[in-house]
């Protein structure tokens, strides 16, 4: 869709020669594919709100790591996965419930503000922009090692989602029948929440904690509007997320004033909006997928 156009644009070609852009592309591809796959099930299970709650946790976890001088990765992944599982325990049967999320996540955000204050006041040597970096992402600032790690974690999340995709679909759509057929419905619910947590932590690096929700929800929502075939929609969701990531990065490179997180989510939102212009039908969706 947008990417071939931007490939031809004059601002694009030199980008591929830039190490920071290469790193962003490598990391962004892994992150987007994982977010697309996880997002499909979030939308299907009506758990998008969980992703939102986890974005707050990602912010707080990262700032707690800064404030306490721990590794950012431990703060992000530890916080998100632990909190995702906690949501499952508090909600019924491995599904986090709206009231639980609503009452806890504003408190978590407040805790993040506390850690931010702690960090900026007590560690004077620290980076004053840390809060902004966590909130809005810093994908153009990744080292090659960080980019490779992000891509590998993304690939791992993708592999895990695909491994549980069929029983998770069964459990999401038809819980009682799935349980009767021996699908470990409750365990799958927790496995999925842990994957959402890992994905939120991972995506924080690219689009920032505030914008995770868009990357989880927009491609998946668009894919579900474009086709009624579940596994095609799953693939389409991942494909759209990756294409939107590339297009957003290219846009951000070509127009220097646009931060990458804005570029990525602008494209993602535009694609989701565009699905409302056509009637959601299976065949057209397949054609659109080929075009993308």
């Amino acid at each position, binding site marked *: 869709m947008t990417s071939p156009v931007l490939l031809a644009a004059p601002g694009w070609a030199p980008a591929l020669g830039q190490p920071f852009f290469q790193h962003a592309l490598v990391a962004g591809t892994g992150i987007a594919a994982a977010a697309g796959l996880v997002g499909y099930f979030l939308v299907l299970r009506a758990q998008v709100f969980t992703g939102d709650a986890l974005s707050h946790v990602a912010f707080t976890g990262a700032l707690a790591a800064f404030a306490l001088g721990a590794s950012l990765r431990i703060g992000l992944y530890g916080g998100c996965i632990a909190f995702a599982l906690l949501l499952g325990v508090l909600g*019924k*049967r491995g*599904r986090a419930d709206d009231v639980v999320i609503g009452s806890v996540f504003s408190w978590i955000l407040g805790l993040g503000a506390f850690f931010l204050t702690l960090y900026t006041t007590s560690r004077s040597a620290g980076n004053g922009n840390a809060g902004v970096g966590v909130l809005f992402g810093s994908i153009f600032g990744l080292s090659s090692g960080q980019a490779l790690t992000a891509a590998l974690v993304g690939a791992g999340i993708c592999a895990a989602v*695909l*491994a*549980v*995709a*069929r*029983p998770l*679909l*069964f459990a999401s*759509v*038809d*819980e*009682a*029948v*799935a*349980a*009767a*057929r*021996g*699908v470990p419905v409750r365990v799958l619910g927790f496995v999925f929440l842990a994957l959402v947590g890992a994905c939120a932590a991972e995506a924080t690096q690219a689009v920032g904690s505030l914008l995770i929700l868009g990357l989880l929800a927009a491609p998946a929502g668009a894919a*579900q*509007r474009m*086709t*009624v*075939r*579940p*596994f095609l*929609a*799953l693939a389409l969701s991942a494909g759209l997320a990756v294409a939107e990531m590339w297009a957003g990065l290219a846009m951000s490179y070509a127009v220097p004033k646009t931060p990458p997180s804005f570029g990525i989510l602008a494209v993602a939102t535009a694609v989701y909006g565009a699905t409302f212009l056509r009637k*959601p039908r299976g065949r057209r969706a397949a054609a659109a997928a080929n075009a993308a």
Partner: protein
Amino acid sequence: MARQGTSPEPVSAAAPVVALQDVAVRVGGRTLWSGVDLRVGAGEFVAVLGPNGVGKSTLVKVLLGVQPAHEGRVRVLGGAPGRAGERVGYLPQRRSFDASLRMRGTDVVRLGWDGDRWGVPLPRSRARRAARKRIAEVIERVGAAGYAHRPIGQCSGGEQQRLLIAQALVRRPELLLLDEPLDSLDLPNQAAVASLIGRICREEGVTVVMVAHDVNPILSRLDRVVYLAEGGAVSGPPAEVITSETLTRLYRTPVEVLRTSDGRLVVVGQPEAPARHSDRHADRHTGRDGGPA
């Protein structure tokens, strides 16, 4: 609690599909029912009847192995309940699918075929062709071919119910456990779905155990009924169990059984006994917690 008037069971040479011996179930510290004896032979059509909140759905959950029996012996297809896997088809007491669910009827039937396997289906495999053939066949069998390709949330209640019966049937189960399949259907659809289940039972030799709220739509097709009432139960052929005297005793309120001019039984004055606990249509998420009904 004493067992009430269990009729002598015919001695069958073949192993029964379902065998309950003096089974009792406790949920949340309360005995829902006890002293239930039941032998269901292959190809029989059995209804589980009783007032609201008495634990009819719990009986189905016992047969699925999801709810343990407190005492007594339960055998399903010759083994412990819950071990028969795809040899048992299950239709839970149902909410309808969300209207926004973007999935076709065929996809829901497909989940019954291989939804319990790990991974994702591979395109163009031999397994996929076999799955397609069987799914098309079973959808044709329940008469859902006309709307199986529409998003299931946009199908009517009767259409969804047929698709879900197809989902339960797709692996060719030997035992079909149906929990209130006629609930929330209008009268023509009740009759149509009841006759579909009757045909499947008769023509394909599938044993059917069906929880029902209202016995009349299925009464003519039944081989055996189980009446659950507070504390006790009665099972046997309909002609023996469905009598004014037995039902009046079980419900503790006057119930009359009438015979129509063509010989069919009709139950009149069956009380809508108030559920002792939650609503009969409890939230589906609580299903496994074993709420009564």
